[in-house]
């Protein structure tokens, strides 16, 4: 049962921003797969601004190695866009894991980011692609790195009356990329742990390694120490073993020792090791 609210369906970004500016106690809805569930479970708000009909927010464009994904591009669209599979494979794979086919047809990349779940599948891939978010309000536009945007589990820097308009990432040509996760069933499941990677290497050395880990710490994160450690290192078993320990160390530094780590730590280690080995 939903609480009472009024809704508006703007068709342009300007209209949407104007509604957000003028309506009190307003929440933005896109796919509705998170917000409506929360509202059925007791959250409430006076106004809902439904941005799903706003054409500018639905665009996905590629220009000069830069990919701009409108905030209401669905997971289904991302996972099926061929060029994304080339330029940001981890993202396209991760979006294919979100929920079910129906959820992927409804849920959007923007919704996934604004909801800011520690288990959000799209976040680790976007982190390794150094995603920059474009956030707009009636008063103007600001840009923020995804890493700074999420400030706590389910909490972002988005202010009332602001709208997440798009996400910008850079393709990583020449990198091998991927995304793997652990979940309690084969489909339609929350990630218990996820790892995204993009690795460039020459002959026997790591050139640049980007890793992001989800569902482990309060927010998905990039283990920068290990990325730094691996730069230019020879690709061999002792190095990889040491790298894995550094990742574990970084996780403990963020979260301390949690009961769930009995499971998660060995999985992170195994998945990172696999990713590094390739």
């Amino acid at each position, binding site marked *: 049962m939903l609480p*009472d*609210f009024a*809704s508006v*369906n703007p068709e342009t970004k300007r209209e949407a921003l104007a509604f957000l500016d003028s309506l009190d106690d307003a929440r933005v809805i896109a796919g509705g*797969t998170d917000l*409506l569930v929360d509202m059925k479970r007791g959250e409430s708000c006076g106004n809902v601004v439904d941005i799903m009909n706003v054409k500018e927010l639905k665009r996905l464009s590629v220009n000069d190695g830069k990919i701009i994904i409108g905030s209401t591009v669905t997971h289904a669209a991302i996972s099926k866009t061929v060029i994304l599979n080339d330029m940001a494979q981890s993202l396209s794979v991760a979006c294919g894991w979100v929920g079910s*086919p*129906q959820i992927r*047809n409804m849920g959007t990349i923007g919704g996934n980011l604004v909801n800011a779940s520690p288990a959000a599948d799209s976040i680790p891939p976007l982190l390794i692609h150094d995603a920059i978010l474009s956030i707009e309000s009636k008063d103007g536009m600001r840009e923020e790195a995804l890493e700074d945007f999420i400030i706590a589990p389910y909490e972002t820097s988005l202010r009332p009356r602001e709208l997440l308009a798009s996400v910008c990432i850079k393709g990583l040509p020449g990198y091998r990329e991927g995304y793997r996760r652990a979940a309690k069933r084969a*489909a339609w499941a929350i990630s218990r742990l996820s790892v995204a990677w993009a690795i460039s290497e020459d002959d026997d050395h790591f050139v640049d390694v980007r890793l992001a880990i989800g569902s482990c710490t309060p927010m998905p994160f990039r283990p920068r120490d290990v990325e730094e450690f691996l730069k230019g290192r020879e690709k061999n078993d002792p190095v990889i073993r040491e790298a894995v320990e550094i990742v574990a160390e970084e996780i403990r530094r963020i979260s301390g020792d949690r009961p769930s780590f009995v499971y998660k730590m060995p999985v992170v280690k195994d998945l990172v090791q696999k990713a590094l080995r390739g």
Partner: protein
Amino acid sequence: MKAIHFTLNGKKASCEVQDKELLLHTLREQFSLKSLKEGCGIGECGTCTVLIDDEPHYSCLTLASKINGHDVKTVEYLGDAELLHPLQKAFIDSGAVQCGYCTPGMLLSAYSLLIKNGDPSDDEIKEAISGNLCRCTGYIQIIEAIRNAAGLCKCKS
């Protein structure tokens, strides 16, 4: 209240909906389409599946106002008892129906796959129906039915 105009099962439809009204309730109550079910209300079971612009969606998490200008299909679109769609026929012949509660949603997800892909692999079929839970059948005869109906489904789209 909002007035919405959309295409429902191939015909023009209009109605008034509350701001917070869910498509599931609009279709069940205003259009008497009782084939849509509310198995969980939070988009975790698939019994409320409808096609919006031929793609499966959960109507329990879709605000009715969203469908203004869109195309909506329910299982009634596929066929009726006198003139079954080949997919419905295949469901009967393969034994893909037990309690029947998931069946309308399952048929719609399958139909959406088959109009895009006339020769799906078993893995593609499984993925296409992975957002529709069934507790009775173990899915096997559903998968068989979809496989058997593939290629016959472009006749009505």
